[in-house]
């Protein structure tokens, strides 16, 4: 990963960016938990040229670092260079489409599984880079969705009831999600109390439905919600289901352009309505 460190040093030394958000070695042994976390990499915020050598990128670096772009304490650090996986690049474009980031805030160090690094200095460059990637659901992901669709209604209900029964309402999924950036979430509203505080079946269902719905047409399928979940609820399935619905019904993909309408805040006069009497 010498190249990543070298690029980081140059950017910091030249003052092009004030901080590099990347991956570093975490503490502890490789832990194989109920979620599909592999080893321990953690986010590092490099502000000193001398520390750029601690940047790593390997298979354990799965977190979508774009989540930090929306944290006020990170924004205060100044312009950032973000080590970005394909999903993180899509996140940046989605945040730009939602008027949350601009060219002044960041540049991206696009990384991939082959260890290549590309410096993308503008949103336009990120757009061009993302356009050349395969951003749709993978065949395996589609097959998994179809597997659940093939179950009957009652089997699906039982499956999700069991999954949600383990939910602790810890909101780690919300914290990990780069697109859950509201400074005040409906969960914290208590007049009225939309989502009950205790982790019981009804509130757990309501919370998980709300999380999925608020990401409809926005989620870029990074999978960090599932990775963050301490009880291993496959939250990504809900997001992927809605990604496929939004694509099928509205021919719309999130995270593809820095200027785009959100699927759920626009419409076409001829949207499907075969279910409306």
């Amino acid at each position, binding site marked *: 990963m010498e190249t990543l460190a070298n690029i980081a040093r140059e950017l910091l030394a030249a003052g092009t960016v004030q901080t590099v958000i990347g991956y570093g070695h975490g503490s502890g042994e490789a832990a194989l938990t109920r979620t599909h976390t592999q080893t321990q990499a953690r986010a590092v915020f490099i502000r000193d040229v001398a520390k750029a050598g601690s940047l790593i990128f390997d298979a354990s670096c799965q977190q979508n670092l774009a989540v930090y772009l929306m944290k006020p304490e990170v924004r205060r650090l100044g312009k950032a260079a973000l080590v970005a996986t394909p999903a993180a690049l899509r996140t940046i474009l989605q945040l730009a489409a939602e008027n949350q980031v601009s060219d002044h805030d960041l540049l991206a160090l696009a990384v991939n599984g082959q260890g290549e690094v590309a410096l993308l200095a503008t949103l336009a460059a990120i757009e061009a880079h993302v356009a050349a990637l395969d951003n749709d659901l993978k065949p395996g992901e589609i097959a998994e969705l179809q597997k659940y669709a093939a179950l009957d209604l009652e089997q699906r209900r039982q499956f999700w009831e069991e999954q949600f029964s383990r939910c602790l309402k810890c909101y780690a999924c919300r914290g990990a999600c780069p697109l859950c950036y509201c400074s005040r979430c409906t969960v914290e509203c208590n007049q009225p109390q*939309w989502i*009950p505080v205790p982790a019981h079946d009804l509130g757990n269902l*309501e919370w998980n439905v709300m999380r999925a719905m608020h990401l409809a047409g926005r989620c870029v399928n990074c999978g960090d919600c599932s990775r963050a979940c301490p009880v291993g609820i496959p939250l990504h399935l*809900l997001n992927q289901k*809605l990604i496929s619905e939004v694509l099928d019904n509205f021919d719309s993909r999130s995270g593809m352009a820095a200027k785009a309408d959100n699927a759920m805040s626009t419409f076409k*006069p001829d949207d499907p309505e075969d*279910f*409306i009497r």
Partner: protein
Amino acid sequence: MSDFKPRIVAFVCNWCTYAGADLTGTSRMKYSPQVTIIRFPCTGRIDFMLLLKAFANGADGIIVSGCHPNDCHYSSGNFHARRRWIVFRALLDFLGIDVRRVQFSWVSAAEGAKWAQLVNATSESIRQLGPFSGFHRLRGLGVE
């Protein structure tokens, strides 16, 4: 089960369906009394959380109804709502919740008879589905 009376909550928009339901009454049409009508400014205001809350508080079925496409008082509220419903129905179905419990419709201010038919038909289909005990069972701690 034959004497089961379903509880139906209707979320309707002020400009079309509420006025349509008014017309049903002023036209002296009789229809199923199992429905509780809640008036909203627009279908675009009807959040999916409201539907969940209705089920959580004992509704067996839900009607969501507003202006026909291109008739929205706010031009596009119903178009936005339609997209939300498409996605919401897909999510409910994926979670194993019977989407037949939620009936969406367009009823204009002039369609008093259609409103009566809609409520009657929905009331009957929900009666056949039976109580929504699968959802009502979820009520655990202190949400009243």
